[in-house]
């Protein structure tokens, strides 16, 4: 299991140093490096990552202002040349605080510290999915989702209370959903098996929705369901 991360650092040398240290860590996967917090914020509004190596003093908005505006809270390791930000860092509940220049042992210590937290979070997230809809990232718990339907370039998430349209593919969603709970019953439908009311011929009833089971998927569906 790898921890995805980004670097937000305006100094090229410090950024390169971090990049090289991250490359040496098999548990870390560097998604990108940003020289400004504004660029990072734009990226983070579209992508989910686990960890940010974040400088504080940068042109434009600073590291703390970036944290204030994040749509979600990944783990944060602050990287700064000054210790004077330590109190504020504590208030932001950052995971660690590395003073630049960062020594290799101190870097490794920070990564070791973060690993169990990331593992636990990933475990919890196995029950969640984040979708991009209505211009933001929305967390849906697996138990909320009744079924997912492909609609052209979009995918519709149907929950008991609301529907969400997201620009993605059913294949991509299929990979992310919990395989124990969700089942593809048609090339355009993935259903939550816990939400099934009844199955009749080649259809599944979920709430008031009638969902077709394709010939190709029928055997798989019957095998997977606990039928007496």
């Amino acid at each position, binding site marked *: 299991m790898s921890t995805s991360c980004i670097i937000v650092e*305006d*100094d*090229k*040398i*410090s950024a*390169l*140093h971090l990049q*090289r*240290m991250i490359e*040496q860590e098999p548990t870390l996967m560097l998604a990108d*490096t940003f020289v400004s917090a504004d660029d990072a914020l734009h990226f983070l509004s579209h992508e989910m990552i686990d960890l940010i190596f974040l400088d504080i*003093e940068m042109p434009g908005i600073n590291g703390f202002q970036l944290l204030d505006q994040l749509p979600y809270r990944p783990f944060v390791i602050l990287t700064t*040349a*000054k210790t004077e930000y330590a109190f504020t860092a504590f208030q932001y509940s950052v995971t660690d605080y590395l003073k*630049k*220049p*960062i*020594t*290799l042992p101190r870097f490794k210590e920070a990564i070791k510290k973060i690993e169990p937290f990331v593992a636990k979070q990933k475990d919890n997230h196995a029950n969640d999915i984040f979708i991009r809809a209505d211009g933001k990232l929305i967390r849906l718990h697996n138990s909320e989702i009744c079924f997912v339907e492909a609609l052209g370039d979009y995918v519709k998430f149907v929950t008991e209370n609301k529907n969400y349209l997201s620009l993605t593919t059913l294949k991509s969603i299929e990979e992310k959903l919990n395989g124990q709970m969700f089942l593809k019953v048609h090339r355009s439908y993935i259903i939550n098996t816990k939400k099934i009311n009844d199955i009749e011929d080649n259809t599944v009833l979920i709430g008031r929705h009638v969902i077709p089971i394709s010939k190709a998927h029928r055997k798989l569906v019957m095998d997977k369901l606990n039928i007496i």
Partner: protein
Amino acid sequence: MSNLTSLQTQEDVPLQNPGTHYIPPHLPPELEANLLTATDTFGVLNDQWVMEYFGNDYSIAVPILQLFIQEALPEVDELETVLLKYGAQELRKKVHKINPSFKMVGQTDLANALTDLENGCITGESTDKLRFKIKKVQALAQHLRPLILKQYNTISKLA
């Protein structure tokens, strides 16, 4: 970082004559000349920093030192201009940004002089006093520059 990538892929050139220094082909000519006269009076050729920051991995340390020579070291020459044109607050930001790089490559004397300058900006020292501190940093950098290049010359063979 595209310029960095191109530097990293340059081929090493074997020594022409044993006992002479290999001069990396990408360094500016005026800096190359300094290599031949450098002497290690400050002991900067000590590479303890390679262990401390890079775990003795010269393949990481060398490109960092390259980038330091290209990017951070020339910034020292711009400090006075920043002070006179933009004021002490901007000077503080610039010094704050470059200072860790100096420590990272073992230049603690220069890093300490930069810290002193940054503190001067924070405590509101006069422009004249700040200029004096800048001159001190620049004089030290001028003295150390050939030695840093010499050190690069040495460790680039270990990468």
